[in-house]
């Protein structure tokens, strides 16, 4: 099934106010119902290389795997495995490139992959790039960062409020391409018509509070490209200390894999 009529996508990416170049990479395809975002790290241009490999590889391989398949031929579990496999492949590709080329040594990237299928969203992530959901004007963080800070919060050592002021926001505990193997955290979530999903690099939540993100998305949801631009602008107005990338996806209607009898009858005409 082609999801283009049911998903609306807007993207924006910016190097920020301090960095000379943008190490984030993004890709989105409404036909397939796929969005991929990666935030690279590593010296010189290695960060861009790592995030570029991850986004290109993951998005093209997932598209290839889904090409020509009817939605009812796929199931959620197999798609979860597909995302996990492709994240692992990207890991191997980046890790090997880093071993081979001295200038890429130590490069890595975060990754967040979102795939819409059968009224569900399957999301896989590694690192501190996030996926949020706005439903009924309420913002909720769907992914949980793989970061030192999140571990400190989980262990009760610091509160969320204190976390805002922590100096080590930028330390991730899981990344693509750093170790020979990595596992993506993959979950499936039920989707409702009207949901708006936000994929973003840490440059957004580090600079803009969740309350402000919620206000922006709920005020500007009628104009997704404006909302995307506005989020990037807010991050930059607040200092823009890091690259910032956002992908916004609006779910216009339901997309069940098996068409109901009504739709089947309609399709005869």
């Amino acid at each position: 099934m082609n999801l283009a009529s049911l998903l609306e996508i807007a993207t924006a990416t910016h190097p920020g106010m301090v960095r000379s170049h943008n190490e984030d990479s993004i890709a989105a395809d409404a036909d397939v119902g796929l969005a991929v975002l990666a935030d690279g790290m590593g010296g010189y241009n290695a960060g861009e290389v790592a995030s570029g490999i991850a986004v290109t590889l993951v998005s093209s391989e997932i598209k290839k795997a889904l090409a020509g398949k009817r939605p009812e031929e796929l199931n959620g579990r197999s798609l979860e495995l597909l995302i996990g496999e492709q994240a692992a492949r990207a890991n191997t590709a980046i890790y090997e490139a880093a071993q081979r080329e001295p200038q890429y040594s130590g490069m890595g990237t975060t990754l967040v992959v979102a795939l819409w299928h059968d009224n569900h969203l399957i999301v896989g992530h590694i690192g501190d790039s996030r996926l949020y959901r706005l439903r009924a004007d309420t913002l909720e963080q769907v992914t949980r960062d793989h970061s030192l800070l999140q571990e400190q919060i989980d262990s009760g050592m610091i509160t969320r409020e204190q976390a805002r002021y922590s100096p080590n926001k930028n330390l991730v505990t899981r990344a693509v391409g750093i170790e020979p193997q990595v596992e993506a955290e993959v979950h499936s979530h039920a989707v409702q018509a009207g949901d708006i999903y936000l994929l973003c690099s840490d440059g957004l939540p580090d600079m803009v509070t969740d309350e402000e993100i919620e206000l922006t998305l709920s005020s500007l949801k009628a104009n997704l490209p404006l909302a995307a631009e506005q989020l990037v602008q807010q991050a930059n107005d607040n200092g823009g200390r890091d690259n910032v990338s956002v992908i916004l996806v609006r779910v216009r209607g339901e997309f069940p894999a098996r068409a109901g009898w009504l739709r089947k009858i309609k399709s005869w005409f």
Partner: protein
Amino acid sequence: MAKLILSLEGSVIREVPLDKERVTIGRKPQNDIQIENLAVSGEHARVVTILKDSFLEDLGSTNGTLVNGNPVTKHILQNSDVIEIGKYKLKYVVDATSVQPGPQAPAEDMEKTMIVRGPVGARTAVPPPGAAAPAAAVPAAATPSAAALQILNGPGAGRELAITKNLTTLGKPGVQVAVITRRPQGYFIAHVEGKAFPIVNGKTLDAQAHPLNDHDVVELGGVKMEFFYKAK
């Protein structure tokens, strides 16, 4: 490396380097910092140090722990914080060699995402190169002076709408909506939805955000509003 300087009534008793992950404070002898005073609980508090950060935790002590005069249960220590336990004071001092770079230091290397290898708190946690990053809060953007809109015509004429948020939407959803954004450099208006675009001083806007100046007249769905700064 950071350290704690223990003192009683102004005279220094000893210095304790925070050279291990957990440094405990209490009356019982097994504590790293033993304070023999009845106001101090057996196991009173501890300082957990991870990378360059130290966290103070009160361990449910009877008489509590103060930092800079305020009672705390958990606290991220900042350079020169003074911890008070009974009559004793412990000053938290970050050593000159690892002192945090000032705000003038380039933010370049600090916000970069970096990987910590292995299980955190064990094995080889890799600290970021080039010392600790400054405590970076989400900075509040500088806001321009307060502004408002006053409705000039129609049934609501004379009503004033204060602009108190970074985003203020105007109009009817589904019909015509515009947004006023508050930015460090001033206020801007942009079209959000609807066939008609907002009009400023008689000129119809395009898709671009348009800066608002004092006493500009905004027209939206036939309603005219004057934008003005409340305080100069």
